[in-house]
């Protein structure tokens, strides 16, 4: 077999665990300009109709424009509520209402634009290639499809169940599972990761994705997707926001906003008949201005941008959510199932300590362990040599011999030296049995050994017993190497943070309960499931869900698929099988299980951003009332002037300023909508207090200042 590049391990450094969100520049002027044409295209009523709040603004804008055109023809001074307004007033209102709608569309366009660039690069991978389709595949007799004939077919014509042969240098024509062979594949087109990965038939790394390039070897692949529904196709639709469906919370919020809008429509419609009784009826542009100021335009304008940006934040972390619903569910997760290996601990164990039996010189144990591990390619073996070096053993001049590899039957490995002596290291019972082939061990020796083994197991480690057999056949046990599961640094704090967010962490491991308990305690998880089988995992998820919990988990194997499907948030690793990827509702392209924590955070941030802008939007109304109500009626009831606490210049400038503020605040908040509000894990009560202070109280205060400042400028216009 040709050279295979080693599998790049997913980034498991502590840095990946930190909450450092990639600093994405919120948006630039260039993005804004690029989004402008889209913003105008969205003015079509057929599109606006989907956003009732902004649709009402658009109708208002059109109506006001009409009035502005007709007014000069009818002539006369413009009067509203017994206040004279300048002739340019209606035009001013009309222009700013249009701008309000355009700003809202702009927010959505900018959000979509960020996904577009990604979609473009993905599209490039989708260019159709020629595939070698096997005419009649014989799985049993000719698994490698070496004898079967192939015919060239365009990748676009491949369909479910087709079998293709791909050799080094070719593009994978479609999603599929490798049914024969092993190859290194460059998946950078999808993941952005330049190091190639290994894909092989059978097992959990058999999936290949269309558009990736085979770098070495020859594989036979069975296509698992229909044309147009490949993984890349779905990704494109996702990042473009085309297949974005509204989530339950978004629907609920839309309903609340719609009902608030209806209340204000009623308020405005009933106002003139009532005001007419006091001869205080106001002009229609003023009524429209009042309506637009009152309905929740800020959140209405930014709502869809928030949703698109939330998905986009996931995509930037290389996570693909198959639905917005999954992102939202992530924010609600109450139980997190985490695989021990790779998530909580580094993938490999490391030697931490040599414990020689009494009567055995410590350096003899160290030397024997190191000698037997020198040619051992496993990380465990390497760590033993490293530890021996640290303890002062000179690694030069150590003898080499014939390697006895580890097998599941012998459960030990070792070295046969040229002088006929042997060294073995492995599981306690296996090594003891090997030693006792040469004669029984002393009971005291045995007891001492048992004690060491138990101590290490209790501490969550793996005991590795080291023994030698001399050339004459006398055997003895030297001692025990303590192989330790190294818990990733910084995890304890992350789990404490999760606990604060109300999320319980459960560690899943195949270890025995003793070891599992020790590691669970060290990592600070709330609970663990030891000796777990995929069935146990599924049962645990069901149990948690019955109790009302929402469960998130990661998985990559085919046997994880049922659990992934059952979990509320199932994150499949990109290295995993297509069955796992089908079953989950998210795929992590980096195959980093710790990313689950980031996903939860993004889900929460998405909800908080919506809540914050809704609160802000409603709180704004207070100040707008104080601007508009005195302006509308002070001409008839001079007493109402005391409500003009901002001391706005004239009724006309007050109303126009409120409308301008209402439009401008949308643009000002676009970066916040795209970036999401800051989220720091802390108790719910303190999060609530902080957000109410910032967005509720801030929402009441900000427009008082903003409208006053705008009024200072507007009052400079002639007539205002």
């Amino acid at each position, binding site marked *: 077999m040709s050279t295979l590049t080693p599998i790049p391990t997913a980034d498991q450094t502590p840095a990946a665990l930190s909450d450092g969100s990639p600093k994405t520049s919120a948006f630039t002027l260039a993005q804004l300009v690029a989004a402008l044409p889209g913003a105008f295209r969205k003015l079509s009523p057929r599109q606006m109709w989907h956003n009732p709040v902004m649709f009402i603004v658009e109708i208002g804008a059109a109506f006001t424009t009409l009035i502005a055109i007709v007014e000069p023809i009818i002539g006369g001074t413009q009067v509203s509520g017994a206040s004279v307004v300048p002739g340019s007033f209606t035009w001013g209102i009309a222009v700013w209402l249009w701008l309000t709608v355009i700003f809202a569309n702009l927010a959505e366009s900018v959000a979509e634009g960020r996904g577009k660039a990604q979609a473009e690069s993905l599209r490039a991978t989708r260019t159709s290639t020629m595939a070698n389709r096997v005419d009649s595949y014989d799985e049993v007799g000719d698994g490698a499809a070496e004898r079967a004939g192939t015919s060239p077919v365009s990748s676009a014509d491949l369909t479910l169940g087709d079998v293709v042969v791909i050799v080094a240098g070719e593009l994978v024509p479609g999603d599929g599972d490798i049914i024969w062979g092993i190859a290194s594949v460059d998946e950078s087109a999808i993941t952005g990761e330049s190091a190639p990965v290994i894909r092989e038939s059978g097992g959990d790394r058999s999936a290949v994705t269309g558009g990736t390039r085979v770098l070495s070897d020859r594989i036979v692949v069975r296509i698992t997707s229909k044309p147009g529904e490949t993984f890349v196709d779905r990704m494109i639709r996702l990042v473009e926001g085309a297949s974005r469906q509204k989530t*339950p*919370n978004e629907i*609920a*919020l839309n*309903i609340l906003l*719609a*009902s*608030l809008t*209806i*209340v*204000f429509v*009623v*308020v405005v*419609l*009933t*106002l003139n*008949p*009532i005001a*007419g*009784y*006091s001869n205080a009826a106001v002009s229609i542009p003023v009524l429209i201005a*009042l309506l637009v100021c009152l309905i929740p335009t800020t959140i209405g304008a930014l709502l869809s941008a928030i949703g698109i940006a939330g998905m986009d934040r996931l995509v930037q972390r290389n996570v693909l959510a198959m639905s917005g619903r999954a992102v*939202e569910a992530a*924010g*609600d997760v*109450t139980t997190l199932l985490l695989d021990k290996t790779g998530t909580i601990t580094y993938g490999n164990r490391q030697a931490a300590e040599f414990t020689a039996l009494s009567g055995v010189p410590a350096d003899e144990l160290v030397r024997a362990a190191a000698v037997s591990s020198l040619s051992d390619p496993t990380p465990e073996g390497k760590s033993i040599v490293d530890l021996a070096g640290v303890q002062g053993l000179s690694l030069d001049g150590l003898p080499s011999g014939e390697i006895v590899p580890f097998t599941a039957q012998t459960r030990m490995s070792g070295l046969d030296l040229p002088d006929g002596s042997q060294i073995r290291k492995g599981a306690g019972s296996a090594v003891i049995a090997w030693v006792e082939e040469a004669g029984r061990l002393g009971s005291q020796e045995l007891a001492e050994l048992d004690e060491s083994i138990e101590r290490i197991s209790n501490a969550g480690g793996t005991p590795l017993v080291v023994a030698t057999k001399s050339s004459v056949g006398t055997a003895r046990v030297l001692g025990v190497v303590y192989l330790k599961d190294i818990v990733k640094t910084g995890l304890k704090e992350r789990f404490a943070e999760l606990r604060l*967010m*109300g*999320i*319980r962490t459960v560690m899943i491991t195949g270890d025995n309960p003793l070891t599992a308990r020790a590691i669970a305690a060290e990592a600070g998880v709330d609970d663990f499931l030891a000796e777990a089988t995929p069935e146990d995992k599924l049962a645990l998820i069901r149990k948690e869900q019955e*109790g*009302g*919990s929402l469960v998130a988990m990661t998985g990559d194997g085919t046997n994880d698929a049922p659990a992934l499907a059952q979990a509320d948030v199932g994150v499949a690793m990109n290295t995993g099988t297509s069955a796992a990827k089908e079953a989950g509702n998210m795929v992590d392209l980096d195959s980093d299980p710790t990313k689950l924590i980031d996903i939860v955070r993004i*889900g929460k*941030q*998405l*909800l*908080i951003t*919506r*809540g*914050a802008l809704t609160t802000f939007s*409603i709180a704004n*109304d*207070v100040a707008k*009332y104080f601007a508009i*109500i005195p302006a*509308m*009626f002070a001409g008839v*009831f001079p*007493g*109402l002037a005391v*409500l003009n606490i901002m001391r706005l210049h004239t009724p006309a400038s007050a109303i126009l300023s409120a409308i301008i503020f209402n439009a401008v605040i949308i643009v000002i908040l676009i970066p916040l909508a795209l970036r999401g509000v800051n*989220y720091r894990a802390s*108790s*719910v*009560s303190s*999060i609530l207090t902080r*957000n*109410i202070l910032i*967005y509720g109280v801030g929402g009441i205060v900000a427009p008082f200042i903003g409208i006053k400042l705008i009024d200072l400028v507007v009052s400079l216009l002639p007539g205002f």
Partner: protein
Amino acid sequence: MTVLFGILQILTLVVILALIHRPLGDYMARVYTSGKNLKVERMFYRLIGVDSASEQSWRSYLRSVLVFSLVGVLFVYAIQRAQAVLPYSLGFPAIPQGLSFNTAVSFVTNTDWQSYSPDVTMGYTVQLAGLVVQNFVSAAVGIAVAITLVRGFARRNSGTIGNFWVDLTRGVLRLLLPGAIIASIVLIIGGVIQNFNGFTDVTTITGATQHLPGGPVASQEAIKEFGTNGGGFFNVNSAHPFENPTAWTNLFEIVLMLAIPFSLPRTFGRMVGDSRQGRAILAVMASIFAVSLTALTLFEALGGGTATSLAGAAMEGKEDRFGIWGSTLFATSTTLTSTGAVNSMHDSFTSLGGMMTLLNMMLGEIAPGGTGSGLYGMLILAVITVFIAGLLVGRTPEYLGKKIGPREIKLASIYILITPTLALAGTALSFAIPAVRADVEKTSIWNPGLHGLSEVLYAFTSAANNNGSAFAGLTANTPWFNTALGVVMVFGRFLPIVFVLALAGSLARQEKIPATTGTLPTYRPQFVGLLIGVAVIVTALTYFPVLALGPLAEGLH
């Protein structure tokens, strides 16, 4: 001295309510959860053919509420129309169609808006068999509906929300009737009259003849306040010395109005198994009440204008025996519960004081609100508050372990749309239709100008919120007002009930989510503050423009 006496009254009220709300709340929780039936109840169930053990889905419950209420309207309408031939009618003639409709609807909806002068219109039979009966059952219907919503929160995976006939019967027999009997006795001791004497002619000192009406006043007075009904035996309601003779009976009547509404949060807490939740709701109600009372008392005590300065306070329209404090306390209680009884003329309050009584109703009768309707109105607002707060902390909102999703928000949102729409549309139509406007201006409004506008606004706000009190300067016994207010009362009562029951059904079906540290606690002062904020801001935003045109324009000059 007045201030001291006023504060003492309030303190006494607070102490009494503090003492009774727990036992009464616990008692109500037992009444509506007990599995046992009284003998008389069993007999009644057999009579009407109801299986007391079987429960109803929300749709079936709603049908029962609507059918029962429709029968009530038809019956009360019929006996009014037949008054001329009924015994004990004191010789009054049959009541005209429009007024009969308005009155029937008014009492069945627990509004007790009175477009007529009762003492010169209704005989004893109509008062007792029609109006008093509805005073009992309409209050019981309100509590029953509130209890179903509480059950919605308390139950899990349940397709049913209770049995209307059982809830109704128990509410009347175990709660309202015993309470009203005790209250009547106390009122009789306090000097309220109770007889069937008809009219008594007396010769006054100056030699003139006075035509004094008698009647079973105390018994009607008791349920009028205890069931937050408000329909008086006499035209001037609790300002009449036969209904409310002294400062003591005045305070007692206030206690009666507030007893059930302020105890229901306790019932709620008990039934959902977490008394803290009940206390939070109670705190919201009590805070709004305290602020509103303070504002009204300040406006009235400080008054304004020459006449009031001379009198020491705005005493116009108030009874001397109650004074400012006794009047504002009663006015706040009657408009913040949906009672609508009055012991002073709200129409004659200062402009801003009158606005407070209007605002109290505009809040949607939630602090503490009518019997039952107050609790369900407040819980609806709590659902909205939880939704916004849930988003703010990044969790799908949940209240008492129930997810607040699209369906729940839809029902709650429509609920809060109903009363403002009815109140504003009714007022606007009164001025928008030229023929109606001419009639309203000519016949109904006695105080042209801003105050007339406030009177019409008050009438429709009162009807939409099923309060029943009036800015008295309005003649409402006209075809327009009888019809429009009648329609507004029906929609204002039953449309919200439809959505409350639907919400109860939707919540009962849900599984209960266990609370974690990530769950928003809904019993802390923080949530109480937020709920007050939502209640006030939603109201203020909806009504600010019309208030600016009426009482604000009048009061700020």
